[in-house]
């Protein structure tokens, strides 16, 4: 047991911080927000060439760095601090894990190698159910369908909220067999097939979402990931790993909102004193710090569990519980800190010019993405208390006296 960063991990953190401070200042974020892709291609290329982050968790045999989930969290935290617009979350946290867990050797050789080289970006789409099913961002949200056929499979469905779905080079989608309810993952190269990709204007302009539509789409056998007949278990694992990465990003975002608020309070003078000397405001900042430190402990705990899990030292259920814990804690922390930052900045926090609103919107989108805090606490509760029989909600409640 050693719950502190190694020297190498510190180095990764320091390098990430310096690099991101340089490449992702406020004007670059705003420039990225205005692009179709939602990120600046040249900056992502610099990340791939100079930092190699796209290869962090890819094993060395595919040309990756072979590092773990703690290192991934470190990088995500720093990206969150700088609100860096990039395809990292979709490519590294979603698609790479999907390939690692589901793909056969040939598929890994092909796509993981390309991903490690930074030649392609990728994403994962799975939300294709009703609003109620989609709130869970889990396997129950997979309602798009597949049927196996001669030489491949036919996909039908509409995937919602696909992160960077319209810009990625490799798109992995999850679909369900109407025959037996099994879930399978499919890799498609959107530029080479008849799949519709609709970019959606988003509340949080620093992260692009799209809708993907497949109608009688043929996927050849080479695109059917792996041989497991039902990949529900694998999908849930991929999502838990992605939640830890997102939680790390939320932690970084929270840290920035605190830093900018404290800087502002120290600078702004009212009643002939810096605002930072008023106890009412100090206590609010202290509460943000308390939440931030909790998020840090939560996320690195979960990242350690993920590393132990990948080495076979922790069970799947331990990973799921840790991921749900990290996602719920960090979602609450970031939304709290971003809201407090707006209040502490006063009127200027409500302007387009200041970056406060960018963090507020990122906080809201990240809190929702991959399942809201209450959804994840319900999962934690299930693991502690056993599941409950949920009563069917009646929508016919008579509100008249």
């Amino acid at each position, binding site marked *: 047991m*050693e*719950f502190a960063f190694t020297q190498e991990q510190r180095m990764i953190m320091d390098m990430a911080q310096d690099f991101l401070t340089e490449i992702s200042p406020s004007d670059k974020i705003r420039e990225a927000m205005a692009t179709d892709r939602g990120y600046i291609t040249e900056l992502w290329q610099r990340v791939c060439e100079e930092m190699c982050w796209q290869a962090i968790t890819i094993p060395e045999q595919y040309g990756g760095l072979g590092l773990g989930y703690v290192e991934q969290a470190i990088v995500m935290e720093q990206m969150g601090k700088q609100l860096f617009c990039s395809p990292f979350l979709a490519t590294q946290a979603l698609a790479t894990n999907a390939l690692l867990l589901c793909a056969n050797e040939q598929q890994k050789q092909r796509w993981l190698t390309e991903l490690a080289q930074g030649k392609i970006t990728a994403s994962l789409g799975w939300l294709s159910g009703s609003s109620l099913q989609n709130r869970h961002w889990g396997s129950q949200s997979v309602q798009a369908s597949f049927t196996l056929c001669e030489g491949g499979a036919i996909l039908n469905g509409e995937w919602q909220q696909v992160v960077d779905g319209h810009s990625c080079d490799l798109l992995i989608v999850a679909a369900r067999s109407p025959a037996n309810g099994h879930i399978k993952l499919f890799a498609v190269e959107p530029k080479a097939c008849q799949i519709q990709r609709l970019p959606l204007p988003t509340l949080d302009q620093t992260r692009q979402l799209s809708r993907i539509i497949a109608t009688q789409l043929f996927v050849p056998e080479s695109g059917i990931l792996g041989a497991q007949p039902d990949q529900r278990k694998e999908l849930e694992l991929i999502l838990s790993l992605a939640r830890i990465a997102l939680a790390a990003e939320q932690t970084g975002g929270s840290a920035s909102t605190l830093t900018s608020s404290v800087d502002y309070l*120290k600078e702004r003078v009212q009643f002939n004193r810096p605002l930072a000397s008023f106890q009412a405001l100090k206590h609010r900042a202290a509460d943000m710090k*308390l939440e931030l430190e909790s998020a840090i402990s939560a996320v690195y705990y979960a990242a350690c569990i993920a590393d132990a899990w990948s080495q076979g030292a922790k069970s799947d259920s331990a990973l799921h519980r840790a991921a749900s814990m990290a996602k719920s804690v960090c979602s609450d922390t970031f939304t709290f800190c971003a809201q407090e930052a707006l209040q502490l900045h006063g009127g200027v926090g409500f302007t387009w010019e200041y970056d406060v609103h960018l963090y507020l919107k990122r906080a809201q989108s990240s809190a929702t993405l991959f399942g809201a805090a209450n959804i994840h606490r319900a999962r934690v509760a299930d693991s*502690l208390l056993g599941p409950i029989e949920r009563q069917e909600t009646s929508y016919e409640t008579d509100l008249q006296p």
Partner: protein
Amino acid sequence: MKLTFSHEDELFRQEIAQWLSDNLIGEYEQLKFRGGPGDEHMFPNERKRWEQHLAAAGWLCIGWPREFGGRGLTINQQVIFHEEYARAGGPGLVGHIGIGLLGPTLLQFGSKEQQQRFLPGILKGTEYWCQGYSEPGAGSDLANVATKARLDETDNCWHIQGQKVWTSLAHEADWCFVLARTEQGSTGHHSLSFLLVPLDQPGVDIRPITQLTGTSEFNEVFFDDAVTDAANIVGKPGEGWRIAMALLGHERGVSTLGQQMQFSNELNEIIRIAISNGAASDPHIRDRIARAWEGLVVMRHHALRMLSNPNQSQQPPEALVYKLHWSSWHAELGKLAMDVLGPEGLELNAAPYQLSRLQSLYLFSRADTIYGGSNEIQRNIIAERALGMPKEPRTKSA
């Protein structure tokens, strides 16, 4: 960064688990899961005997260096010890103030003679300590201590005059470490000294304070020309504040793990009751139980961060937020306990005021956000030390 333990450490886990299951039996059986926060007044003599039993096997001062009679366990082994001790239901230690606070302070600042005189009593579980910091006029403003001590060269003793308050377990203690003013007319944290004072003497009067629980862990301690030998000052006169603060630093050390394990046992009891009385089917209660579990995991990993942090010269942020975090968490756990108990939580076990463990948890945890530096003081400390925000301008004293 990793959370798994080595094979060697896991063997150590088996050793301590086995020892506890072989020894926490017979006359000690009744002490299982007792003596924790809010229950510290229970079975004091029986618990002291248990502590002497632990001491004889070398399991009392496990983190102290070997050359001072401790077990010299690594941090990892201490973490494991506390986990297994709690799992086995090991009772709260009456001696925790000596073991966790005064002992380490004497190891750091005590003279050789003081170490030889005072460490063995703590190691053997035969001498118990209490902490004399707070006073009626020195609560949040601790530096406003008014208790005075004067060195009388005729009898070569310190003579102490004043009053301490909220002194936990003073009625079970043999000695008190006292923060006292040793220069007449001084103010603030200058000229305070750290004195070791025997309690069994005519100049000391200990009066229990009845708390809202109906029980008394806390006391008022009156010093009316109490005496202690001139040699019983730790450090030099005037160094008391520095030593007192260093001692509080030990509150955030390994001893926090023992406290967390008590918390874990409390949460487990709440979960058991929620499942058995049906409260676990209420989504709101489920959400709060999940939050409590998450908070406990966070607390544990704050502690592991502190323990894994080799740079102890400067307080890291996780140490600065630690008290605010656990006190708020525990206060909420107390409320959760009552809401899980439901209507039955309103009835007592017996008259006049016999509380169940969870009722006692609820009431006693109201103190957590006050003692040891209130939440408001903690927020000032976090804002000033971790965030570099300026102190609130002070009004000039009249």
